[in-house]
């Protein structure tokens, strides 16, 4: 069933990443980590559909936010990040997905590990945790190319001031802020050991990013003693356009 959402706000997160806020009157609410299918239709009836993770927490106003990275060769993402204007209507189906989700009844420690725009469904989990006033211990390890590529910067920064904070660690792969203690590079075993929940806490881990990122991180987590069935993964590549 296709629902209709009206674009009510647009926000550029970075030069190539935009958040679209939609008002969806018949939205049935969602769980953090779920995604939607978005359908675009040309005037001759040709249509294209892609999946995007929901960035927003459930709310009573029926708002749904999608954060979308523009892929140079993409068919749908250039339209959504450049053409769409406030007032436009978009068709979407969902929410979809019952595995890569964080539910409010979960009280165990949570380890979020995101690469690039893989942060998006993890941000929905962080936002849901706030909305539900959950005290589940959350940690986020966020790998980005460079400081200017970090999404939700101000919001993530503000998290450290809460009573029950989410601990955020940044890792940069190409360029770091001035004076940053760690040289640019991929997330490695020592960063995992020093900044994520130890395996004996039996945290649930959510890993989202490119295939190579997820393969590498999931391998590091299992090598450091995490049970494979406590590691949930979501992969996207240029082809999947999953955010």
């Amino acid at each position, binding site marked *: 069933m296709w629902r209709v959402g009206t674009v009510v706000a647009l926000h550029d997160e970075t030069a190539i990443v935009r958040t679209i806020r939609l008002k969806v009157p018949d939205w049935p609410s969602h769980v953090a980590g779920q995604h939607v299918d978005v359908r675009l239709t040309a005037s001759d009836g040709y249509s294209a559909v892609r999946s995007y993770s929901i960035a927003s927490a459930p709310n009573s106003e029926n708002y749904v936010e999608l954060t979308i990275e523009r892929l140079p060769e993409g068919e749908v993402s250039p339209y959504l990040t450049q053409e769409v204007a406030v007032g436009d209507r978009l068709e979407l189906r969902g929410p*979809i997905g019952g595995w890569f989700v964080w539910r409010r009844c979960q009280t165990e420690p949570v380890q979020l590990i995101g690469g690039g725009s893989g942060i998006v469904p993890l941000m929905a989990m962080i936002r849901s945790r706030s909305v539900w006033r959950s005290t589940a211990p959350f940690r986020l390890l966020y790998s980005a190319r460079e400081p200017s590529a970090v999404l939700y910067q101000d919001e993530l920064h503000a998290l450290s001031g809460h009573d029950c904070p989410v601990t955020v660690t940044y890792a940069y792969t190409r360029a770091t802020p001035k004076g940053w203690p760690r040289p640019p590079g991929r997330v490695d075993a020592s960063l995992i050991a020093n900044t994520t929940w130890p395996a004996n806490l039996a945290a649930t881990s959510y890993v989202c990013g490119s295939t190579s990122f997820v393969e590498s991180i999931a391998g590091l987590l299992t090598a450091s003693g995490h049970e494979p069935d406590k590691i949930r993964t979501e992969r996207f590549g240029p082809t999947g356009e999953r955010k």
Partner: protein
Amino acid sequence: MAIISRGFSGRRAAADVKLPPGQYLTTDFPVLSAGPTPSVPLDSWQLTIDDGSRVLRKWDWKSFRELSSESFTVDLHCVTRWSKFGTSWEGVSLDTLLAEVKTDASYAFVHSYGDYTTNLPLKDLLNKQAWIAFRFDGENLAPEHGGPARLLVPHLYLWKSAKWVRRITLTREDKPGFWEGLGYHNYGDPWREQRYWGE
């Protein structure tokens, strides 16, 4: 009636390309799995066919690779909407694996290393429709794509083609596997666009 997306023209596939509804063509090979990629050493690898209580057939890697295999080229359709045409594989047909199995079962429940499961009607595994594949594009199958060996049932959405397959249980009763229990369609025919429950 769909809403027209103002200013959207899209990128159509060539007219002679026949895609299932809602799919688009890709040339690379995306990976989708629910958890970490299991490491499956060949010296402990096993493939079992059972009926839920009795083992009906069993192979280790050596005896599995001694079975006659075939090369085949098929199109793949993933529920996340990409399709990939003309992929070349080598594997053992399920017709070969099930040749000496006598059963009155109607369903198959497939288990993977790493505890993934999926279900499908037994008839969808027969008659040159399904293989246990161990080579892709002339190379040993990479772990992230299901190596050392995966089920391949290309006429259904790709989540039915369980990676890292280790056991096939033949049953009289159907029961949902991993994604089927999480909202995905029980059968998953891409040409009828059976993505989610209720479609």
